[in-house]
Every structure is written in structure tokens, then in C-alpha cells.
């Protein structure tokens, strides 16, 4: 049994279902992320785990014990709030000592533990400062240090980096990964930022409208999205919809309108005539001026409609005569080379049959 078991949890507000029959098992020591767009119920679920809200249906178990009768102050879990929620009238030391005092830790042990927690979050020497005398990143660290000082079994983090600027966020992400490894505490992390989720997590649950769309390791979520929603939400992707025209061994041919037949390897039991969508990452697509004549790959002629130079890569939007637009991405690995093609150039896009991933509808 997993450390934290969420079993068929549902939460309704009036006739609106914010969390809909969610089941997750989170293992000890795991960095688990709830990922989803704004309003999909992430905070609601996290607040139920912390005990600020109770499910209308289902159970939440920690080490096999149903938590329903435990108020937040009696759950061995700690929450890191998006607004940090540092106590403004206490110093950094006072903030970090607070949970120890609440746990009736002997006064003689408190200062050593506070010291150790501040060291964990790299804030040694800041103990006498007040929250308003700290930068955003430092406040965030105090919040995490304060949550970790009592060594809870689970740390719940609600978009803890959302208020930081991009550069600091990246730094803090690396620190979070290291910190989680170091302390070995289970992290349940909430974010709507897919790159953050992919970078940090051991496993990700992608949520949409209160439900879990897919629960998997980051590479599977990225490479093998189970639903259209997941494919679309995580990064850029080409979605090619059509009906199955042929099945041959492990290769399925999909008749895509505006493009033509597209072949894809799939273990799916989908039958001829069934509807499906091929999800195809732009970086898996090759873009060349002439066709590789004799190859089993999918290949289509088109012209460059738009391009977006992004420094390290250039994104080409290729218009296929049938009407489809294919997004392809090419690394500008050669220094000084901004792009390989111009708008209006005739090109050939191609990808191997195993580059795409079939989603059944």
C-alpha cells in the first residue's frame, strides 16, 4: 500500500464538481505532481489532503489510516502556501521555530533544529530578519524550511514558485529537486506549468475538470499522451485526426483529411473504421528541401507558411496543399545560422512511423 492513498475522492460545490472521483496512490519518497489548467481542482484536492476541506465522497488514507477525523493540525503533513503565509510579526527564526513549539519540542532542542532547517534551505544567517526584509525567493525558502523542520511524512506544495520570476524559478526548481532527494520526504506538488512538472516530478497526474486524465512518469506523459487533452496541454504537438483505413501488424494507417494516409505503429486494438488521433511532437519531424525518395516514412510536400526564430531552435509551420498545417522544429545547431528555410520555400516534411503516437477517441 502506498504512503498516501487517495481513493475515489469527490468534492462538489453546489452542483459544480471540483474534484471528480480521483484515485491516486503516492509512494514514500516520491516527488508527485498534480498538473492541470487553472480551475481544474488542484488546490481543492490539495486542501482536502491537508485537511482544510473534507471530501464529499471517497477516502484519504495516510499509512493506511483514514484521515477523515484528523483536523489539519493533527495531520503529519505540511503545506507550503502559494502566498508563503509567513507570520509577519515573527523573525525567520520565529517562523521556523513555530511548528516545533506547537509540537512541544523541548526549548533546548529548538535552536539546533531551526539552524539545521535553515541550512537545508540555504538561509543560514538570516534567522533574525523579518519576512518583509527578505526577497521573494528567500521568503519561499523560509516557507519550505518552516514546513520541513518537523520532518513531516508528506510536504504539500501549492504552486510554490508561481510568484517568482523565470530565472529564480529555474534556480528554485533545481534546489527543490536536490532538497527533496536530501530530506527524502514525499512531495505532492501542484502546478499549472507543464515544463516545471516535467522537470521536477517522478510521476505526474494530469488533471482536467476535476478528473485525472493521465497518471504516469514525465517521459510517458510527454511522449505518449493518452488523451487529446494531455497531448495538447503538454508542450507543442501536431494532432492529426482521422479514421483507421488499414491495420497491418503493428502499423495502423489513418486517413487524415487534408493530409492523406498517415502510418503509425501502435499496439492499440482499434479496428478499421475507428476514429483516432495521431499526436506528433514537432521535434520528431524532419524538414528537408527534397524528399527522401525510397523510405518507409510518412512524407508530405508543402510550403513554409510561417516561421518563428527562437534562438536555439526555429519553428516552421508547413502548409500542406490539402489544408493541414504541420509544425516542425529544427535546432539551429550550427552557430550563426538563423534558419534553414524562408517563408514560401517548398519543403518536404517526413517522420518515421514510430515517431507518432495514436490516441483512440
Amino acid at each position: 500500500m502506498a504512503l498516501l492513498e487517495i481513493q475515489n475522492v469527490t468534492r462538489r460545490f453546489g452542483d459544480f464538481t471540483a474534484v471528480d472521483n480521483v484515485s491516486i496512490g503516492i509512494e514514500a519518497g516520491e516527488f508527485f505532481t498534480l498538473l492541470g489548467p487553472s480551475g481544474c481542482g488542484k488546490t481543492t484536492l490539495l486542501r482536502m489532503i491537508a485537511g482544510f476541506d473534507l471530501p464529499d465522497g471517497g477516502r484519504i488514507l495516510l499509512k493506511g489510516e483514514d484521515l477523515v477525523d484528523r483536523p489539519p493540525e493533527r495531520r503529519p503533513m505540511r503545506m507550503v502556501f502559494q502566498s508563503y503565509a509567513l507570520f509577519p510579526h515573527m523573525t525567520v527564526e520565529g517562523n521556523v521555530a513555530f511548528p516545533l513549539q506547537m509540537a512541544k519540542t523541548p526549548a533546548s532542542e529548538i535552536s539546533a533544529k531551526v539552524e539545521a532547517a535553515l541550512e537545508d534551505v540555504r538561509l543560514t544567517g538570516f534567522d533574525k530578519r523579518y519576512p518583509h526584509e527578505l526577497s521573494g525567493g528567500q521568503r519561499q525558502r523560509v516557507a519550505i524550511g518552516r514546513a520541513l523542520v518537523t520532518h513531516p511524512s508528506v510536504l504539500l506544495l501549492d504552486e510554490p514558485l508561481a510568484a517568482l520570476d523565470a530565472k529564480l524559478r529555474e534556480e528554485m526548481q533545481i534546489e527543490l529537486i536536490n532538497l527533496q532527494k536530501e530530506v527524502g520526504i514525499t512531495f505532492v506538488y501542484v502546478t499549472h506549468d507543464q515544463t516545471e512538472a516535467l522537470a521536477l516530478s517522478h510521476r505526474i497526474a494530469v488533471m482536467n475538470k476535476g478528473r485525472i486524465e493521465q497518471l504516469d512518469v514525465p517521459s510517458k506523459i510527454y511522449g505518449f499522451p493518452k488523451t487529446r487533452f494531455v497531448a495538447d496541454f503538454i508542450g507543442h504537438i501536431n494532432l492529426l485526426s482521422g479514421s483507421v483505413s488499414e491495420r497491418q501488424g503493428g502499423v495502423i494507417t489513418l486517413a487524415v483529411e487534408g493530409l492523406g494516409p498517415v502510418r503509425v505503429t501502435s499496439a492499440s486494438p482499434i479496428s478499421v473504421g475507428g476514429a483516432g488521433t495521431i499526436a506528433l511532437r514537432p521535434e520528431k519531424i524532419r524538414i528537408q528541401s527534397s524528399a527522401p525518395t525510397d523510405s518507409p516514412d510518412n512524407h508530405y510536400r508543402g510550403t513554409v507558411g510561417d516561421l518563428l526564430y527562437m534562438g536555439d531552435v526555429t519553428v516552421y509551420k508547413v502548409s500542406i496543399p490539402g489544408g493541414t498545417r504541420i509544425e516542425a522544429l529544427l535546432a539551429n545547431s550550427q552557430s550563426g545560422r538563423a534558419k534553414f528555410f524562408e517563408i514560401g520555400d517548398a519543403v518536404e516534411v517526413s517522420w518515421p512511423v514510430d515517431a507518432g503516437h495514436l490516441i483512440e477517441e
Partner: protein
Amino acid sequence: MIVVAVHTPSRLGRWLVSGPPLAYLIVFFALPSLIMVLASFRTPGEFGGLAPLIEEGKLDLNLESYARFFSESVYAQIFLKSFGYALLTTLFCITLAYPLASLIARSSRRYRDLLLLLVILPFWSNFLIRIYAWMILLGPNAALARTVNRVLAWFGHDPVPLLFSAFAVLVCLVYVHLPFMVLPLYANLEKHDQALLDAAQDLGANAWQRFWRITFPLSLPGVYAGAALVFIPAFGIFAIPDILGGPEDSLIGNVIKQQFLETRDWPFGSVLSIVLTVVALAFAGLAAWVARGNLRTPSSARGSRA
């Protein structure tokens, strides 16, 4: 440079804005205070008021009224008693206003305005009328006095009058000043961030600990503001002891009023007024000084629900 120039109001503009209130304060506060200070050094007139300032070509200023104040301990005692009443009033107001203010701060927006309106509703009727109303409420034939005395009778106790007593004075003092404690306290509590209480609870604090370690210390600026608004007027009050108190309950406000209107010893009345002002200011200053230590970060106390 241009930006700086635009944001610095011109000298004339500044005077136009601050001039009228400043003039008002000079004419109706600074000058009268100065006249009172001057009066405290003069000799009382033969038939009340003040003796001529210049007598036989000599300026008649002396310290006699001050000497009298410091030599007769009865005045210090009355000050002490008034101080005690004002302090008790402040403490009772804090105790009563705190739950009321937090109830209002926590109620839904819809009821909040209504509840605040109820708090200030008494101001719509005259101050003296409200005091006279207490005369009826506490009178010997009113339900309250009858009930109290019936209970006392069970215990074999003689009946006691509620009216014209220290009790009546205190009850009315608290009643009159309560809104002045509720309003600043509400204004403070209303701004508290629920996320802080959630965080405290999450970190293991029970309801009492959340109040004592988070809500109360963060509300102290409101408590101090309310305490100043209650303590200072309660210290100098004369109408309430006049109407509801017995002969024993005369406070410093009554004595000052007496000096000006009955005994007509203006210099001595001025001395008492000055001492009253100095003590009240010293107390308010002390409160502000204590408060500063707790007023660390009002601005960062805010945040949103995570």
C-alpha cells in the same frame, strides 16, 4: 528631473491644502491651550474668573495654583481614581469589543455593513439622552435592579441600589466608549489574511494557539488605537459621573468643571486641566511606544488564499 518636479507639489499648493486645517487647529486648539496655560499662572479674581494680569504696574504671575495641587493629596487621589476608571473602562471595552469585532470581520459581506451600522447606531441619539436612558435602566423600579435584588434576597443580602454608584458609572462608561474600540479593532481584524491562520493550523496550532500567537499579536495596532480612543476621553469625562454616580464617584472631569463653573477658580481649574492633558498624552505616548515594537510589518501581513 522633470518627473521629480511634477511630483513635488508647489509651495503654494501645499499651503492651500494644509492651511485651513492648520488655521483651525491654531485658532481653536493651540490658542485656547496657550490661554489656559497662561491662566494657570495667574491669580483668581475676587469674585471668580481671573485677577488683572498687571497689578500696580507689576506682572502678576505665580505658581500658587500648582503649589496647591501638589500640596493637597486629595487631587492626586482623584486623578488616580479617574485613571483607574478609565483603565477599567478600556479593559472592559477590549474584552467586549474583541469578540464583537472579530464576529463582524468574519461575517459575510452582506451582513457586515449592517452590523457596523448597529455598532454606530447609538451615535444617532444625543449623548446626554443615552446617559439618562441608563438612569431609567438602572433605576430601582427597573427590571434589572429588581432581579438583582431578588437574587440578593435569596442569599439573605440587603437590597442594593444600582443607580448613583461606581457600577452605574462604569457600565455607562463602557457603553459609551465601546464603539470607539470596536471600529479600529474591526478595521484591523478585517485585513487579516486567512492564509496565515491556515498556515498556523497546518503547522500544528490549535484554535487557542492560533488566536494567541497569530491573531492577537497582529491585532495589537488596532487594540492600541482603540485603547487611546477610549482611555483619553474616559479619563476626562464628567457628564456620566455627574448623572449616574454618587457623591463618591466624582472624577477629575467633575472637579475641573466645578473649578470653572461653581468655585470659579480659573487658575486652579487650568492647572488640573493641564495635568489631565499631560497624563493622558504621556499614557498615549507610552502606548504608541509599546505598539511600535509590535508594529513590525503591517504591509507584508497581506497575501491571498493559496
